[in-house]
């Protein structure tokens, strides 16, 4: 009984992680940037979602508005800040996004306060459904479905649209892509925008479950880092599988050993994975 309910919750966490990690993977694939500020964007999404709900906006409007606002912010950040260090050594991009994470957290403290904020679940999603003789809160099911649907949509878009073609080309070989006429600057702006939007919508959608506060993104960022390493850096398929693996490990670990030990367990697994399969589940991650 316990195992099944843990598994369900693992899938819920996995779905949130999936949305979040896809953004992290996209930005890495195209820009070779490991974005330490991704967790802070999640926090913005969560706090913005709470604020919008407080203003009386319905959930569906919040889930549309939050990614739009934060996505635009992402484009601005890329144009104003990340563009300055495009051709610098990798170290600078790490330092820069780390500094950004500190900055955004500071801004959130200033405008959102330091307290935990609760986001109410709308009436229509506030029930529970019976599943395998267990009850699963409807909202959690909704978040899982949302995550899977958005991820599927993103995959279809990457596979079939013009933009997706460019992204995949840049992912494989940015220089060749540039030679073939891909405008790298515009592409990068759009990718950072989409990535930020994904972080924000996962933050807003998960806010009723995780609550919202200025550093709510920290833990999810660590889990997502573990996800992208397990799946292989830059591997989208790998990220999908890894997100659910991590979600299940964390939830089961918390259920049986307590939360902090779950993180340890995950870290040990990641280390083991790195020794044996440094390129992730599908062997398509980058190791340079």
């Amino acid at each position, binding site marked *: 009984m316990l195992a099944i309910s843990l598994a369900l919750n693992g899938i819920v966490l996995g779905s949130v992680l999936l949305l979040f990690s896809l953004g992290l993977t996209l930005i890495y694939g195209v820009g070779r940037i490991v974005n330490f500020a991704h967790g802070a964007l999640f926090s913005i999404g969560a706090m913005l979602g709470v604020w919008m709900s407080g203003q009386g906006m319905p959930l569906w409007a919040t889930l549309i508005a939050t990614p739009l606002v934060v996505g635009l912010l992402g484009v601005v950040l890329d144009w104003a800040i990340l563009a300055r260090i495009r051709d610098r050594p990798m170290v600078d991009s*790490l330092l820069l996004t780390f500094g950004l994470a500190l*900055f955004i957290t500071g801004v959130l403290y200033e405008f959102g306060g330091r307290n935990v904020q609760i986001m109410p679940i709308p009436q229509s999603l506030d029930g529970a459904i019976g599943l395998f003789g267990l009850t699963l809160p409807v909202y959690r099911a909704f978040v899982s479905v949302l995550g899977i649907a958005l991820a599927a949509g993103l995959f279809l878009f990457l596979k079939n649209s013009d933009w997706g073609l460019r992204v995949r080309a840049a992912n494989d070989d940015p220089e060749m892509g540039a030679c073939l006429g891909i405008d790298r600057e515009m592409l990068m702006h759009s990718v950072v925008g989409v990535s930020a939007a994904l972080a924000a919508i996962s933050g807003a959608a998960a806010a009723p479950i995780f609550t919202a506060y200025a550093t709510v993104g920290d833990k999810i960022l660590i889990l997502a880092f573990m996800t992208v*390493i397990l799946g292989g850096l830059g591997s989208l398929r790998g990220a999908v599988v890894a997100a659910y693996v991590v979600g299940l490990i964390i939830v089961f670990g918390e259920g049986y050993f307590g939360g902090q030990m779950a993180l340890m367990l995950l870290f040990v697994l990641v280390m083991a994975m*790195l020794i044996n399969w*440094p390129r992730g589940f599908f062997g398509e991650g980058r190791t340079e």
Partner: protein
Amino acid sequence: MNSTTVVKQQARPLGRPTSRRPLIVALVVIAALGATLPLWTAEEPFLLMLASHAVIAAVVALSLDLLTGNTGLLSFGHAAWYGFGAYAAGLISKLLTPEMLIILPFVVLMATVIALSIGAILIRQIGKTFAILTLALSQIFYAMVFVFSSSTGGEDGLQGIPLVTLAGQQIVSSDAWFWLLYTVLVLSLAGVLYLRTTPLGRAWLAIRENTERARFIGIDTGLLKLIAYTVSAAIASLAGALFVLFNGAVSPDILHWFESGKILMYVVLGGMGTIIGPVFGAAIFTFAEHYISSFTDAWLIYFGGLFVIIVIVAPGGIFGIFGSLYRKVTGKTGDAA
């Protein structure tokens, strides 16, 4: 790291392993001035305390730059070792003995053993993965405080550290404390600078400039990175131990990623890879932090903003700026490392 990126990655002018006379003279003068600090802060006990904190921060900054400046490995979770040292020393002093000569070696030894075992896997990773894992590791250390909150005090931190003794003598005066910390700093700095002139230090620089080529000429890059990581962790834990004994208490914040960010900031501000730069960076930052945070509570915004601006505008830090000015004035072109 494929061949194209190797060509593109122009090393920025970093610290030079070669010792130069004017630099040494200047350093000796500054060191001597620093040592007399307690004499002219007699009226201002608070200033001396701040200076002591700055000295501890400088030791941590030094330890991080020993790793980053020598091997190019960037740790985003250096607070893990700093905090480990603090908690370990605090617990030993409470449970076993307040004798510093026992506590410090013991803490450093523990950090060395743990860093060796974790580092053995960590250093196999290249830049990005290494950076991610160090951050994750520090979060795990942070979590451990709450797992064992019965002994670490959890959220409230570790309180009631007894007055420590040095060879049986209690250290009470703040002047004595300052000199003790300062001695540790000067010795660490001298040691790390000396390392740069040894074959080991040369090999490290080779790894920093181009790990592939360093491997080709027969350098055991993995082993040397591991040495750098372990020594770096050991010095950081020493700084943490000194911090807790000096401060008398420690809170879990010392393991938070904000703290790691601060340590990184010292290095970035001072000039990565210059070894001396981060020491000054730490001192400047500690004083700036105190005065700025006293008139604004939006401290993190300024801190993060400054971090971003420095990385964009002056990636070489203070030392980089001075270095380029020096070259402009003298017309000499300094070749990198």
